[in-house]
């Protein structure tokens, strides 16, 4: 058996429950040591995918490889994967130590080694002072850490996390995001993290896959996925996006240079996702709010669109403007340079952008 560069590989994997297709032919390759996220709305098939990797569901079709080895038929207790459950699933009748020692003890190693490894894992998650406590007496964040220790102590090839921060409050969640990243770097295990929270996925992941209706819409680094969304769904799901629907009028090397949007012609030199664009294609232009600028008068030399300020919302470091363009289309603008005095609700303004920041998505 050859050493695989991938901790996890899915080849055309599907899962059907009766007539329902939960996962529809996905391909995925996750290298060793990567922090990888499966991101998508609820019902998109991400948890089912995770449960197939863990061995709790068997793929209806396709092949699942763990560290290069075909693993479709390997039961969960023989798999080199561990799962951190959303509910933590700590054993309520066992102390923190016994919980974490559960895995190592099943591996039939000496009790001294068990003790050593458990303490190591508990130190990694900074819970070594709570060894004799029962899960009931721990806070949510502490339980979370114990659940993590219970998984990493087994040194799995792939550590699976099913929305592990879902039950925590916002502040603790932010804290744990950084902690998880630190722990992952420290132990060097491949993490596969399931979440519906795009911000969480962006913060922690080396790469992420956006899933929708059982399919993978895009795989890439957080930057790629944010700046070059492959589909309209990805553009809308990741971050905030203004989407302008239009028709391609001119193309250069597969990227649209001019797009007509509701009668106006917009100049772009943007990238285009998916297949190369052709004249006449229906596309959506993705404009991130932070790439838009406000002007009192029509700016020269850049594409722009007239509009009227509907709202100006102070958000601390920046101001969010809601602009209503022609044909009542609304645009969200985050301008760090503009102030509220510059553009008050009711004012007529121009919205401009740099062509190179526009990204087109073929529908």
């Amino acid at each position, binding site marked *: 058996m050859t050493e695989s560069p991938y901790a996890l590989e899915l080849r055309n994997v599907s899962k059907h*429950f*009766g007539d*329902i*297709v*939960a996962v529809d032919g996905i391909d995925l390759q996750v290298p060793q040591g990567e922090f990888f996220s499966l991101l998508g709305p*609820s*019902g*998109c*098939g*991400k*948890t*089912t995918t995770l*449960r*197939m990797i863990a*061995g*709790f*569901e*068997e793929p209806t079709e396709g092949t699942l490889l763990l560290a290069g080895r075909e*693993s*479709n*038929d*390997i*039961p*969960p207790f*023989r798999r080199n994967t561990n799962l951190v459950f*959303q509910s933590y699933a700590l054993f309520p009748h066992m102390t923190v130590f016994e919980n974490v020692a559960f895995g190592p003890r099943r591996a039939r190693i000496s009790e001294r080694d068990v003790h050593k490894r458990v303490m190591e894992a508990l130190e990694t998650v900074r819970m070594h002072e709570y060894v004799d406590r029962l899960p009931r007496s721990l806070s949510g964040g502490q339980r979370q850490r114990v659940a993590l220790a219970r998984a990493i102590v087994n040194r799995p090839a792939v550590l699976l996390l099913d929305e592990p921060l879902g039950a925590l409050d916002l502040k603790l969640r932010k804290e744990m995001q950084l902690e998880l990243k630190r722990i992952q770097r420290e132990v060097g295990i491949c993490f596969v993290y399931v979440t519906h929270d795009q911000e969480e996925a962006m913060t922690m992941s080396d790469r992420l896959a956006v899933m929708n209706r059982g399919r993978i819409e895009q795989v890439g680094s957080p930057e790629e996925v944010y700046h070059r969304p492959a589909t309209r769904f990805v553009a809308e799901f990741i971050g905030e996006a203004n989407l302008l629907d239009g028709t391609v009028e001119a193309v250069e090397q597969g990227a649209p240079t001019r797009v007509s949007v509701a009668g106006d012609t917009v100049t772009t030199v943007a990238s285009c996702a998916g297949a190369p664009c052709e004249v006449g294609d229906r596309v959506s232009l993705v404009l991130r709010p932070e790439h838009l600028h406000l002007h009192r008068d029509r700016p020269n030399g850049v594409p722009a669109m007239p509009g009227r300020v509907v709202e100006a919302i102070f958000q601390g470091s920046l101001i969010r403007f809601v602009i209503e363009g022609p044909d009542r289309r609304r645009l969200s603008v985050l301008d760090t340079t503009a102030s509220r005095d510059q553009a008050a609700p009711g004012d007529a303004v121009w919205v401009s952008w740099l062509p190179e920041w526009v990204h087109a998505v073929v529908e």
Partner: protein
Amino acid sequence: MSDAQTPAADHADTPVLGTGYAGKARSRGSFSAFIYLAGPVGVLLLFFAGPLGILALYSFQERSRTGDGSWTISNYVNALRPQYVETALNTLVIAVLSMVLLLVIAYPLAYLLAFKVGRWEVPLLLALALSDELNPLIRIYAWRTVLGRNGLVNTVLTQLRLIDQPLDWLIFTKFAVVVVLTASWLPYAVIPLYAAMKTIDRRVLEAARDLGAGWWTTFRSVVFPLTAAGFLATIVIVFIPIISDFAAPALVGGTSGRMLASVTEDLFLGRGEWGIGSALTFVLLAASGLVVWFSYKLTDLSRLATHR
């Protein structure tokens, strides 16, 4: 196979405990299940289905001291004799009265336990359970100290000079049987109702109050619909043992409090009329089944009515 359907929704897709999993074929699941179930199902097939089967068989045969075991429906015809019909009606009256009385007491009691008694909740609940652990025969017989000719009620009423003669309808009558059955089955009536009420979020009640609903509206539109299932459970759990009760009529019923079970016992152990006895037993079984079905329909309807 209907239970194998797993919803595809992301978080709902984890069935309780037992799922088959990778590498574990369905046939192995069936095999393990067979190992686990062989004992329990075997015991039931032999010693539960067996007796019911024989009972069914005998109800269609000539089975008495003089009978020869030939096929007949005369047992069912005989079961319709006036004296049995009269006892059956008597049984029905007693059962329905006890049932009504039980619900009248159990419903508010369950409500108090679930929402109003605070830290007394667990002790009271355990007291309820405890009363059921006492010997039912002793509990029934002990009612003679309350209802008997020289019992508590008669003594108090005489002392207060409200009556000159002890009331003689307190004991060895239908009345006594109804009282005793109600007392005996109270724990069983309260628990399902209490369980149903516990599923009501206290805040829902407060919200209803907050929206200006009076107690009747709150009850009709919130409490009752949410406890309808508990209501059904109570009727099913309690009516069946009541309609077939033997000890209460035997110990405090006298002749006017006779119920079907006493007749059945007499047919089997006293007169050896196994055929008619079996037929009567099946009538009893059919009656219980009918009540279960009827109360099921009733709760179903009430739920529909309140949801509209």
